[in-house]
């Protein structure tokens, strides 16, 4: 058992660390905006020629020029052909210095890898380099009003008409839709087949006539996700990914494009550090909140949870490096990470005590209201990308091998 990396990998890390300290000391090229802020700016911008997202695109481009995005992708399409370990080191180091969020994350982490694996030569050449440089931003059109956890019962349909698909229906909860150039989506192409066998995977240009985006305001007050309506939207046949009616398998594999849990761990640890600082500064009469046994124990418990997650990540990573399946680590990691995040923000609000109700603009607000935002954010994480209940179903069936409840 050892937790060291090879000399070559450590050299890679050192070089990256140096690059990061040279390049984000000055604020990461304006990329540090939240998605909400980006969206607001995109919405409020007049139709001037200037790209309202130029600032947000700068950071991924800087990263791309230095060779620090698309690590797993083939060189032929602008990737790096990097080893698995290097991908992990890269994610880890970026998390450690909390690099600004990437506006093209959905492209980099979901549709990009899917195209690398299942795309045609034409699709790879056309889309991958533009994803890497944030020339194209993508959104994910999977969920529908009637199809969430039970994604395979989706209804949005596509009929073949000559060289085109004609798409009709609705998607919902589509993150970042108003600023996206393209959408990758699941559509029903054979209504008579069993539900998983009549689904296809399509790519559509968001500017195609017939697509309407209606932003939804979310519980936290922002407008991160939208409804997307399709009314006789014509999509060229070459934008089909994989086989006709073979979309379900492809979607499954893209849901499996998981990253090592390690980068999430660093973010959680940083959050716990802030929470500890907050508790150390908060007055409780003659003492500070952090001196109270219940607070100390709660914070210690979070430290324990985060170390648990980190060491679980090491196990998953070792398996992946050795070419073995990630093991129990992936579903367990996703569930436990979101539960930990939930607990952590709950503790923060508990520690705030009488100041917990106070919102952002009040002079009495604690930590500029970050804990309210973190709290909402954590709650969303146990819904998006597979709810915690669905993760428990997966663990029950795949890891514990309990019998599957009868469906329908």
């Amino acid at each position: 058992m050892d937790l060291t990396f090879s000399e070559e990998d450590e050299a890679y890390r050192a070089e990256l660390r140096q690059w990061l300290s040279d390049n984000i000391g000055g604020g990461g090229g304006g990329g540090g905006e939240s998605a909400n802020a980006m969206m607001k700016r995109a919405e409020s911008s007049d139709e001037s020629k200037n790209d309202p997202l130029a600032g947000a695109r700068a950071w991924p481009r800087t990263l791309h020029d230095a060779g620090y995005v698309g690590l797993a992708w083939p060189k032929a399409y602008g990737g790096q052909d990097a080893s698995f370990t290097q991908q992990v080191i890269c994610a880890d180091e970026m998390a450690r210095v909390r690099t600004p969020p990437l506006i093209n994350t959905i492209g980099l982490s979901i549709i990009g890898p899917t195209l690398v694996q299942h795309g045609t030569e034409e699709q790879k050449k056309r889309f991958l380099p533009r994803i890497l440089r944030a020339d194209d931003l993508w959104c994910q059109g999977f969920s529908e009003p009637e199809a969430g956890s039970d994604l395979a019962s989706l209804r949005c349909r596509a009929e073949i008409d000559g060289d085109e698909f004609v798409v009709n229906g609705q998607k919902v909860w589509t993150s970042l839709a108003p600023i996206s150039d393209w959408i990758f989506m699941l559509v029903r192409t054979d209504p008579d087949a069993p539900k998983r066998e009549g689904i296809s995977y399509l790519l559509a240009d968001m500017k195609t006539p017939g697509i309407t985006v209606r932003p939804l305001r979310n519980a936290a007050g922002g407008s991160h996700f939208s409804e997307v309506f399709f009314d006789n939207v014509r999509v060229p046949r070459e934008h089909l990914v994989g086989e006709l009616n073979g979309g379900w398998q492809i979607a499954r594999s893209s849901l499996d494009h998981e990253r090592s849990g390690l980068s999430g761990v660093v973010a959680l640890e940083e959050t716990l550090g802030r929470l500890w600082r907050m508790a150390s500064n908060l007055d409780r009469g003659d003492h500070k909140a952090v001196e109270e046994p219940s607070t100390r124990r709660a914070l210690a418990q979070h430290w324990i949870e985060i170390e648990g997650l980190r060491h679980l990540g090491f196990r998953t990573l070792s398996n992946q490096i050795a070419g073995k399946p990630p093991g129990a680590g992936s579903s367990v990691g996703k569930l436990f990470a979101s539960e930990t995040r939930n607990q952590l923000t709950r503790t923060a609000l508990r520690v705030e005590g009488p100041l917990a109700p106070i919102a952002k603009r009040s002079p009495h607000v604690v930590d500029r209201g970050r804990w309210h935002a973190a709290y909402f954010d954590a709650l969303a994480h146990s819904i998006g990308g597979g709810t915690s209940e669905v993760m428990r179903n997966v663990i029950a069936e795949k890891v514990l091998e309990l019998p599957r409840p009868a469906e329908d």
Partner: protein
Amino acid sequence: MDFNLSEEQETLQEMACDFIRERWPADCAREALDKRPAVIGADVWQEILEMGWLGVAAGEDVGGIGGDVLTAAVLSQEAGRGLLPGPFQSSLIAALAVDRSGNDAIRSELVPQLIDGSLRATVAIEEPGGRYGPDAIAAKVRADADGWRLTGSKLLVPDADSAALLIVGAQTPDGLGWVRVRADAQGVEIRKMERMDAQSCSEVVFENAPVEGDALLGDERSLREAYDIWTVLLAADLLGSAEASLELTRRYAIERVQFGRPIGTFQAVSHRLANHLVDVEIGRSLLYGACLALDEKRDNAAPLVSAAKAWLSDAAVAAAESALQIHGGVGFTWEYDVHLHMRRSRCNAAILGDADYHRDRVADYMDESWVPPVKA
């Protein structure tokens, strides 16, 4: 980067699991509840000694195999899974405490005997007064004309009734540390305590008892290290218990049919088990992390040990309680093994620091030395 058991460790684990299942089936643990205390029979003990289990983590120069703490933990985990009683764990930790005492002369004299079983020793740390850990040690050694004398009282000393030598944490003229006292020495009184799982443990009262060699066996550092190693072995034992409870329940949830389907199809059951699976995997990860940190003598070893002990104390008890609930009526019978794991995990959860004590230790570490990452 390889954070999994080595092939040798996996092989050892399988062998230990099979051996215990065959030679100490759960019925032995059940019968021992009536015939207290639970103790490994002489023939099985002899086989364990011959397999070298007590020396897996001791140095090769003193007859050990030179393995690491994790290798010892793997055996403790199997002891937990298979409900193996004393004097296995107390002998293992006694050998390790002397092996790592830093006292070369005594180490080379005693460790070979501790490993081959010719000398039975146990370790005494906890005291009356309701506080846990080395910091609560009040037993005192003073020097008089005849040499060093120990006075004080120890609780929950495992297998003291069958030990020849007691390794005792005490305040001495040379500071906090370990001393050795013969169990049959004048001024040593061993009084049986009863454990819920029938394992042997005693109160040991020292009244001007003579200290062997009139000197420290090991200093404060070695005492604290041995305390951490022992704690991590208990955490491993708890992991074995938790896994056993979960596996019993998993199988029952597949077999037992109600309302025309296996109860494992009810989410009230399956989600509860999924949560325990998560807890077990997090506990296993923490345990590996703590063992590695101890072996590499890293600064965060102590909080990681506490993390493993706190987490697994909660996790093992919770898994045992769910096992009882999900087995329904039969779970509450003497004949089912559920209560055996419940008893063992309840005991181990409360020994060498309960979950709250270890969370406090983590909080102290966070206060003093933790450096969280900070946003650039």
